């Protein structure tokens, strides 16, 4: 039986279109988990994360250079082919060198009718968020709050509505509930025997990026009750998984790991974990509260200033976050699947690897992904050998 969550994995476009048909609502697509989709939710819009597919490129090869991220290329190709035509808006954040340029390419390759007045687009379709590289510091929050106010204004102009503080606060409450529920799920994954597979946990998180959050919360509450009561165990060597862009293509890796005798119990992937690690703290200015939360979403691209020598552990830095994600999960090995050309993750990897080995005394496997199912299948041998090596 296909669950409500699985529906989004199998055919997300159909599921979203079904929602749109039923509610006559608007849908905005967005790249990256730092995008404050809570603002879109407050506007009554369904925010959906843009993902790729295994389809061969049909439209973008003449525009995107090779030796670039295939995941982002795939997203753009789907857009250019009209697969994402149900989107009423697209939000592009400055969260990596290629994604930032989707603002240009989405405009160029996914043409929409534009109406302008004195050079200003009356109904913006592609909306850019200049997400700062630094996420802490005296004026970062001020800057980013203004940036999000600007973003909100563009959404309001595009939808011809006003997004009130009350609506924002209501939306914040729904999202905070979601984060809380997801954290409960993560607690369940600490259990041994394990009541839920990595794949199932991923599906739940993935679906939350494609469906209305309040609906997801309702379904998640029921699922959590059911999972908490499970007696059957989910076997497999407990593993930590990290890497880029774990959408439904890369998520095949969860299954391969399972087939090789492993089980993912914790992860740092661009679809999950970082997104719900903190709450949106209520503030008299809800946009500022959302900005603060969005800055706290852990992203490999973000950086911090270190005034004294850098060997000290800065509270925001990536190693601290990684350590928090692994602790308590009784993990026996870590697998990094870093997509080709995902430079931020590639550069931080040796540092994280050394720290994981030192802190947890577990081996780390590093594989380079190319966003194809064939590529993932080729990893099977290494994953099997890794699990065998640990003692599976």
């Amino acid at each position, binding site marked *: 039986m296909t669950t409500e969550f699985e529906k989004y994995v199998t055919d997300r476009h159909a599921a979203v279109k079904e929602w749109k048909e039923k509610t006559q609502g608007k849908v905005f697509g967005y790249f990256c988990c730092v995008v404050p989709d809570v603002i879109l939710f407050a506007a009554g819009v369904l925010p959906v994360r843009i993902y790729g597919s295994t389809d061969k490129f049909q439209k973008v090869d003449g525009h995107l250079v090779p030796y670039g991220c295939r995941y982002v290329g795939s997203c753009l190709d789907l857009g250019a082919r009209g697969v994402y035509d149900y989107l009423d808006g697209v939000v592009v954040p400055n969260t990596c060198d290629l994604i930032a340029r989707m603002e240009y390419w989405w405009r160029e390759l996914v043409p929409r009718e534009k109406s302008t007045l004195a050079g200003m687009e009356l109904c913006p379709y592609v909306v850019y968020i200049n997400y700062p590289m630094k996420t802490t510091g005296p004026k970062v929050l001020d800057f980013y709050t203004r940036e999000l106010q600007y973003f909100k204004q563009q959404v309001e102009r595009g939808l011809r509505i006003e997004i009130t503080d009350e609506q924002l606060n209501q939306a914040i409450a729904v999202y905070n509930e979601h984060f809380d529920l997801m954290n409960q799920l993560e607690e369940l994954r600490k259990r041994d025997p394990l009541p839920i597979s990595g794949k199932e946990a991923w599906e739940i998180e993935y679906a939350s990026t494609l469906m209305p959050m309040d609906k997801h919360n309702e379904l998640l509450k029921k699922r959590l009750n059911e999972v908490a009561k499970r007696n059957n165990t989910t076997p497999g060597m407990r593993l930590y998984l990290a890497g880029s862009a774990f959408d439904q293509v890369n998520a095949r890796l969860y299954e391969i790991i399972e087939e090789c005798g492993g089980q993912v119990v914790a992860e740092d992937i661009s679809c999950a974990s970082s997104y719900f690690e903190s709450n949106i703290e209520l503030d008299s200015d809800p946009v500022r509260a959302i900005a603060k939360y969005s800055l706290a979403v852990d992203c490999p691209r973000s950086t911090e200033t270190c005034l004294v020598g850098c060997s000290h552990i800065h509270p925001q830095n990536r190693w601290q976050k990684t350590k928090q994600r692994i602790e308590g999960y009784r993990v026996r090995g870590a697998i990094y699947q870093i997509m080709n050309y995902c430079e931020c993750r590639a550069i931080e990897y040796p540092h994280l690897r050394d720290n994981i080995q030192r802190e947890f005394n577990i*081996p780390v496997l590093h594989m380079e992904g190319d966003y194809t199912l064939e590529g993932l299948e*080729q990893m099977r*041998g290494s994953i*099997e*050998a*890794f699990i065998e090596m640990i003692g599976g």
Partner: protein
Amino acid sequence: MITAGIDVGTQSIKVVVLSNSQILAARTDHNCSGRAFGLEGLSPKACSAPSNSSHIIATKTLVTEEGGAVGSKTAMEQILADTGLSRSDLTYIVATGVGRSTVSFAQKTRTEQLSHARGAFYLFPTARTVLDIGAEGTRAMKLDEKGGVKNFVCNSKCAAGTGAFLEIMANLLQVSLDEVGELACHAQHIERVSSYCTVFAESEVISHIHKGKSKETILAGIIEAVAERSFELLQKIGIEQDIILSGGTAKNIGLRKALERMAGGQLLCPPDPQITGALGAALIAQDNLISGRR
């Protein structure tokens, strides 16, 4: 207790039959070329002293057009016939290699990493680093003092630096794979060939041919490229003596010499490096029986 290990590779199927750590027989079948030979009576001491290595008890040409499933059955039947054993005499069979999942009669499968490491450690108890340059991939394993694998790395997806790379280049130069190493050793200098991309390398080789460069110097360049990529894996894993060279490509004398030069020391090589994986699989079968893990 008699066990068997079967290594289903891209180009050949190797089988070793083992009795209480004495190799009873080993067989290598080539899927396409069909050349087969067997080995008998190998003991660890004999293997570590190349001059006292195995002697061939039979050579056979076996042509198989089918893949691992049929080929592995055929290879097993042949080796049973060689040894006079029957299938029921084999207590446990472990399959390894890229086609291991096609061996329906194996009780267990094990990856090449563990199998080659186990086989190399049996033959050379001082082994701490194992480099397996196979047809389809290259891998380096780091062992502890008990022969357990501590860490491993594999080549990235590209064929550059693998046995397949050598074969493509050998075909371009119209020499057989067996001749590559010897010819390269006669080169007075090296014509550099890209080690990073097979397509790049092919165009460079063609360019060298058109410029009238000798086969020897071009082959020396090709071998240098493969050695470089393999050496990079060794460096990633951290070189610790003794280093064992495993896999069919280890028979390439030119490649061995290039790697020894880069590593700054001798590389140990089994007399028949091709069977190391199958040997390791047979040993793992024994280990499982002894430990009661099936």
